[in-house]
């Protein structure tokens, strides 16, 4: 089978993105480009208070405005608790949300929906709607959420799955392997460090948007910028009390997501408005709404305790994370578990390990999925603590991290114990080139030389430079949970329709899935016509998250391709009237090995349509991972710090990644580079900020800055040679891992340059300047 061969013709090539030409020509491809002209406009009326109860609603003035069609509040919908998190069923997130509620839990929470004939009327309706609130005391500091005196955010009786509502704890998890306290006490070197990861945001350039209409058969159809069309259909079915078969969700091109679209925001409101009015509706969030009313990163306080020998070998790791899920518990447990499960196995040589997490509510915008999914937060503390260990022992931190880290053929008990909100599965790192990543990076970055260059005298210099490193891992889908499927349908010109539930959100998954199909069938990639993410037309897929598409959806495509190849062989054998073993399927042809006669795929399919043995050659493949193969990465960074201002400038960031076979190296490198920039932004300045009453104060791209193209130095992504035996043509994931390391590597580099170890991101110039002043 093609899976055994490591020489490829289409896989491993930088094939053009299948959607690139349309995008470059400016064709309408995104959700908003297709809004029906006659669609009603839906606008959300947001709570001005962080914590409040709606006591009275007066719709009359708003309904009097010409063009306002309908106003919907909690009084107009049944109370059905659910989670907006687009996860497999049953979701590990608490059912703590209802579509429209009378209790407001953050500034921006949904108080009502205004539906109007045009934008202007909708805006006026929002202004005219009279809502009285009883204002409650908010909880804005997540370190105080569990305090007995803190107001209770989720005091409703109908929620399900909240760990301890009376203490504002959404979820809790703990696991211990071995004698943690005993080993800590007996270790000659002990480190304890607490780090804070900020509430940053995904900032997909396309805001959240959906339009909905009833098709001629009165079926609800949604076109939406979503990462989870199938989960979306399931969740909508529940909250709208409509069977899934009466709902269709279509995903066009997406203007990226990074996790922010792994939840239902505009979808539920648009669907409700469409059903209530019977008319097409559209709902677009503006940038401020995307900042405050979708997902953010879970900000966390993570404490790591290490016990080690004098030679730097780790005995024990103890990690505690306090996570802020904001107003609702979307992805609360799973992200916090990722904090441990996606970092601790990296350092698998320990004799004992403990991981405990509390995920608490606050009256702040909802945290949720964001690229990395807990790993960046966990790694900030774990890698930071290892860097502190190296400093204590006066050793090269790269060496300390290298000697303790996992290698090919090894395992970690964490794999089995910690999964996605439940038990995991045992697995061995069958492909692990972490050692190679370290060595390649060390040389390419010139680590040893750059490390030596540190040391400075503030009287003689204005700027100093330092270097830092970090190692990372991730997964490839959620083992035994994530399922993907793909259908290949043969056409009479030898092309194939590839129908996949997989959700390309800009990553290029449509392209690499086409490459997999083309490689397996031995035909040019141009002969694959890919169509993805339409719940009516494509088979099921969990969607684009957990770094699953390349591995899980890719294996589903490979399965479909192998099945369709078998069908082709069968059809040819019937036509040739020979045994199947005497048919060779190769290079888009079938060959009769008895007499050398060949038919092209086009000729074969034409015969199947119109000649003898008439039937459609079409097969569906599915895949669930028995394990979640781990990509690995080593990152090296050099920064320059202006001693007069405290400004940090990244000079060079170099990452070496083991993602198995890079199915499309240009796209794989792009994933790493893009993720690197998001992480550097978080390290340097990205953080959502709030007033004393919980009002967002930087929810715009003017105040919340992301890195522009002028200010991050050189970024390099190298790919280590690797082959994952269970992956499609040897591939593992690459979409998330790149965001895990640069934050902590930068923090380590600042320590190397200045001798000051920061424990809180972002490292704004003022923070650095003040610390430098304190040191002087």
């Amino acid at each position, binding site marked *: 089978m093609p899976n055994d061969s490591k020489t490829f013709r289409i896989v491993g090539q930088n094939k053009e993105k299948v959607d*690139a*030409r349309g995008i470059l020509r400016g064709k309408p491809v995104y959700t908003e480009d297709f809004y029906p002209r006659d669609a009603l406009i839906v606008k959300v009326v947001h709570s001005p208070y962080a914590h409040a109860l709606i006591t009275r609603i007066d719709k009359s003035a708003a309904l009097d405005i010409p063009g306002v069609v309908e106003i919907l509040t909690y009084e107009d919908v049944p109370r059905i608790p659910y989670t907006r998190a687009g996860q497999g069923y049953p979701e590990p997130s608490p059912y703590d949300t209802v579509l429209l509620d009378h209790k407001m839990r953050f500034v921006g929470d949904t108080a009502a929906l205004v539906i109007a004939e045009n934008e202007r009327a909708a805006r006026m309706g929002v202004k005219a709607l009279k809502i009285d609130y009883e204002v409650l005391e908010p909880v804005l500091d997540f370190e105080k959420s569990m305090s007995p005196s803190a107001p209770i955010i989720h005091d409703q009786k109908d929620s399900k799955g909240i760990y301890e509502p009376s203490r504002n704890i959404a979820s809790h998890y703990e696991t211990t392997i071995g004698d943690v306290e005993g080993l800590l006490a007996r270790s000659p070197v002990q480190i304890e460090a607490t780090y804070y990861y900020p509430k940053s945001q995904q900032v997909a350039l396309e805001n959240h948007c959906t339009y909905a209409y009833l098709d001629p058969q009165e079926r609800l159809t949604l076109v939406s910028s979503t990462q989870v069309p199938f989960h979306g259909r399931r969740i909508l079915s529940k909250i709208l009390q409509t069977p899934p078969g009466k709902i269709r969700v279509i995903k066009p091109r997406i203007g990226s997501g990074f996790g922010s679209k792994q939840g239902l925001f505009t979808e539920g409101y648009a669907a409700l408005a469409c059903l209530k009015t019977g008319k097409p509706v559209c709902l677009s969030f503006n940038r401020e709404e995307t900042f405050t009313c979708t997902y953010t990163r879970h900000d966390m306080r993570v404490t790591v305790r290490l016990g080690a020998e004098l030679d730097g070998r780790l005995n024990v790791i103890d990690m505690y994370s306090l996570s802020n899920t904001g107003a609702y518990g979307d992805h609360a447990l799973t992200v916090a578990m990722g904090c441990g499960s996606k970092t601790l196995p990296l350092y698998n040589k320990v004799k004992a390990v403990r991981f405990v997490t509390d995920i608490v509510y606050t009256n702040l915008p909802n945290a949720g999925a964001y690229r990395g999914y807990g790993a960046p937060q966990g790694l900030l503390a774990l890698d930071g603590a290892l860097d502190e260990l190296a400093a204590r022992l006066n050793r090269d931190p790269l060496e300390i991290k290298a000697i303790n880290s996992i290698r090919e053929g090894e395992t970690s008990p964490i794999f089995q114990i910690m999964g996605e909100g439940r038990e995991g599965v045992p697995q061995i790192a069958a492909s692990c080139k972490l050692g190679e990543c370290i060595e390649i990076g060390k040389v390419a970055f010139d680590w040893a030389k750059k490390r030596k260059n540190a040391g400075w005298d503030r009287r003689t210099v204005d700027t100093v430079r330092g270097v830092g490193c970090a190692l990372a891992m991730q997964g490839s889908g959620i083992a035994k949970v994530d399922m993907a499927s793909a259908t290949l349908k043969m056409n009479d010109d030898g092309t194939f329709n590839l129908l996949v539930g997989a959700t390309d*959100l800009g990553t290029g998954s449509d392209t690499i899935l086409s490459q997999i199909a083309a490689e397996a069938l031995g035909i040019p990639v141009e002969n694959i016509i890919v169509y993805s993410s339409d719940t009516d037309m494509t088979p099921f897929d969990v969607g684009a998250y957990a770094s699953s598409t390349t591995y899980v959806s890719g294996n589903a495509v490979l399965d479909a391709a192998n099945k369709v190849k078998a069908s082709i062989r069968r059809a040819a054998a019937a036509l040739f009237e020979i045994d199947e073993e005497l048919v060779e399927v190769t290079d888009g042809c079938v060959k009769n090995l008895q007499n050398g006669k060949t038919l092209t795929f086009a000729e074969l399919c034409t015969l199947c349509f119109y000649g003898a043995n008439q039937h459609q050659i079409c097969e569906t493949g599915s895949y669930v991972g028995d394990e979640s193969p781990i990509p690995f990465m080593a990152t090296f960074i050099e920064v320059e710090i202006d001693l007069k201002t405290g400004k940090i400038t990244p000079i060079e960031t170099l990452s070496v990644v083991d993602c198995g076979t890079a199915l499309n190296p240009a796209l794989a490198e792009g994933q790493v*580079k893009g993720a690197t920039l998001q992480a550097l932004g978080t390290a340097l300045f990205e953080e959502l900020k709030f007033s004393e009453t919980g009002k967002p104060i930087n929810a715009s791209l003017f105040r919340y800055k992301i890195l522009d193209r002028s200010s991050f130095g050189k970024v390099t992504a190298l790919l280590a040679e690797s082959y994952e035996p269970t992956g499609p043509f040897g591939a593992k994931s690459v979409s998330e891992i790149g965001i895990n390391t640069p934050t902590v590597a930068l923090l380590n580099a600042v320590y190397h340059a200045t001798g000051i170890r920061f424990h809180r991101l972002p490292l704004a110039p003022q923070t650095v300047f003040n610390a430098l002043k304190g040191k002087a």
Partner: protein
Amino acid sequence: MEIRVNVNGVEKRWNVEPSELLVDVLRDNGYKSVKKGCGSADCGTCTVLVDGRAVLSCSVFAASVSGKTIETLEGLGTDQQLHPIQQAFLDAAAFQCGFCAPGLIMATKELLEKEPALTEDQIRHELSGNLCRCSGYENQVKAISGLMDKKREGA
């Protein structure tokens, strides 16, 4: 009020409200390449050319461009023959989600005409207003630099 504009070489007469923004009027009239990423002149996705100059159409009243020439991405290249900027970005695998592409391509067109001899650092600086969250920027900058090299060689 009525405005007269030339969009991608075609004369248009549009009735607009005085308060309407150029981005909305263009999108309402079918120029869907013009994107709205922030609505506050901070992301660059709505960049179009007005009389050859790159303009953020989310911060310009449609009424103010009456009598002017507007270029949007719809006017560049054909399905058979991409414009050289489009081809360069395609060859460089410069985009992932592509939402920023229309704005960046239009800003690049202006830059190539205005200042075709810039270093990579200068290109980064000049186009810093066109944000991209996916790509890491590098392939885009290299593509633009390559276009400038070609233009100089041709000149």
